[in-house]
């Protein structure tokens, strides 16, 4: 039994079935990449795993720490140790990143406003953030800005990874974290993810393109087409995709970003 096990997951959006039976076992210490062309169900997979209300589970289960996480609220899944870095992080005006991070961290520690011993202290909070901000090349001013408000594409993605670094999940899902990023941002993000890699973290990278996998080396690569895995293997699967794209499955899409002049 793997640490995190997706069994025959089927899910739909607005009555249309997108995931048609996905199974995947992830152990802590492993990095899995799920690759697929547009519309293959990548985002549905990530959102369904985290419990987004717009996605309906039609069948299957996801076992993590003895529970079927599909029965839990998103916040319960997070506190159990799951994390989703969103492809499109959401703007929430009026709440500073610092407040957001502190509230999330307190929630993970079970602080509900009563038992102050569970609360993250300002000093602890600062020291926790210091290194991570450095690795991600972000400065302090970022903490006083509102959640994702006015952030560039790169800043948003780095902010997602910062949240991951602070919350220290056991299973992290990175949903197209590389899309829309310049090469420097990809490197910073990859550096941070690689820092966190280790026996206490299982990673699921969801991506259209192979490029990010040059920086975060996956142990396993799975190809998702039309809501099902069509191929699973080691890093060599990514190499194969890099050459031929998704054409073997009838999708004329490259697995590398088009060069932008």
């Amino acid at each position: 039994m793997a640490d995190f096990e997706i069994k025959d997951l089927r899910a739909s959006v607005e009555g249309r079935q997108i995931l048609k039976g996905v199974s995947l076992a992830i152990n802590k210490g492993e990095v899995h990449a799920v690759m697929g062309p547009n519309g293959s169900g990548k985002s549905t997979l990530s959102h369904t795993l985290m419990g987004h209300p717009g996605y309906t589970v039609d069948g299957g289960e996801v076992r993590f720490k003895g529970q079927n996480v599909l029965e839990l609220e998103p916040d319960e899944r997070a506190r159990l140790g799951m994390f989703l870095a969103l492809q499109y992080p959401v703007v929430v005006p009026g709440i500073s990143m610092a407040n957001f991070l502190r509230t999330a961290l307190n929630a993970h520690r079970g602080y509900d406003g009563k038992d102050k011993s569970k609360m993250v202290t300002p000093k602890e909070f600062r020291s926790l953030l210091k290194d991570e901000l450095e690795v991600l090349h972000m400065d302090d001013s970022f903490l006083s800005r509102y959640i994702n408000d006015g952030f560039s594409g790169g800043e948003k993605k780095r902010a997602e990874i910062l949240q991951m670094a602070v919350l220290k999940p056991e299973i992290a899902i990175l949903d197209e974290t590389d899309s829309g990023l310049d090469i420097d941002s990809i490197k910073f993000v990859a550096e941070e993810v690689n820092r966190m890699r280790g026996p206490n973290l299982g990673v699921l990278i969801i991506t259209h393109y192979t490029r990010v996998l040059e920086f975060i080396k996956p142990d396993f690569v799975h190809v998702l087409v039309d809501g099902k895995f069509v191929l699973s293997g080691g890093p060599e699967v990514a190499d194969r995709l890099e050459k031929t794209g998704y054409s073997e499955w009838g999708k004329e899409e490259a697995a590398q970003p088009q060069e932008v002049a």
Partner: protein
Amino acid sequence: MATQPKLDVGVDYKDKYGFFFPEDYVFKAKRGLNPEVVKEISFMKGEPEWMTKFRLRSLEIFRKKPMPNWGADLSVIDFENIFYYLKPAEKQSASWEELPADIKATYDRLGVPEAERKFLAGVSAQYESEVVYHSLQENLTKKGVIFLDTDSALREHPDLFKEYFGTVIPPADNKFSALNSAVWSGGSFIYVPKGVKVDIPLQAYFRINAENMGQFERTLIICDEGSFVHYIEGCTAPIYTTDSLHSAVVEIIVKKDARCRYTTIQNWSTNVFNLVTKRAMAYRDATMEWVDGNLGSQITMKYPSVYLMEPGAKGDVLSVAFAGKGQHQDAGGKMIHVAPNTTSTITSKSISKGGGRTSYRGHIKIYPGANNVKSFVKCDALLLDDESRSDTYPYNDVDAENVTLGHEATVSKVSDEQLFYLMSRGIPRAEAETMIVNGFIEPFTKELPLEYAVELNRLIQLEMEGSVG
């Protein structure tokens, strides 16, 4: 009870007011409104004749004025079943134990200190903060600032008082300003001399003998040329009262180059009709800022206004309303541009929950000849569920040239995407919703002194949990 102020008619009142009246007279406040009641109020306060006449004239006007036929439904107010004047001792609830459980629970949750609670709850008529009060008063007196309750100001500064009282909001302005003019009691009086900048906010509840949270308080603020003052009334803890009508009048005069900020956080208990007239006159290059938060009451009708009387004057209204179950917050602002080259902004934020209703009602008037005016209105409504309601009623009258008038209104719901995002970080649903609401009103909160901002956020949290009113 040991904590209650001693009220010995023979001693206290003679010392304080220099007159004496029979015991049975003091303790028998009558319900209802007629010239006798009004005369009695004036007599008990030992007022000059002009004020007694002013009150009686106002009562006449009140009788003749129709009820407003717009806004909230006020037909249930029974003017004959209200006590129009109560001595402090009579305002008190008999004991702490008799207070409604929800009010007590809120004080607990907000961590309001005991002494302050009793004051707020009406159990004690005085908030014993004499030490703070005295050092503050000393400091102000040195600068020539007058900060008194309005009754004392009438006694101690009769000429200054008479010069300005009733000049900004005459009794005939509306039915409730007439009512207040007839039966007013308490409130704050502030005079800031030329060029004096008061560096700490003046707060109503620093004052002892505070009747400022009474039903018909009357506030008058005069900022002389080049001065500055920030006045704060109310607080975030709910104010409990058994009387159901609160009708205040606030008049402010901001002279050349002066600036006045008036911050209100009202959180009346949800049986109260809160009908308040607030108006300021701003003269050359003067600035008037209303920061107005309405959380409590059953019905609020309040539209702070600024009359921009001379070139360069600037008016701002920043308001927040929160309407829960059974509440209707009808609030907004008015900007009356009398002079050219004047500017104004109204920013209104409202939150409706559990079937609550908020309305933005605003009026921008630009008189002929008031050219080169800039005015901008922005109202944002947040609905927390499908039963709640929000409306916008903007009125614009423009009779001048070269006017820039902007209006922007949004109605939104707490979005699933925002909620999911915060929850996906481990934050429970209720807390996430509260965060989103606090974020929504942040442009308001950030204008408050820190301790008020913190309390307001905590209060929103309680409202969101539905544990209050």
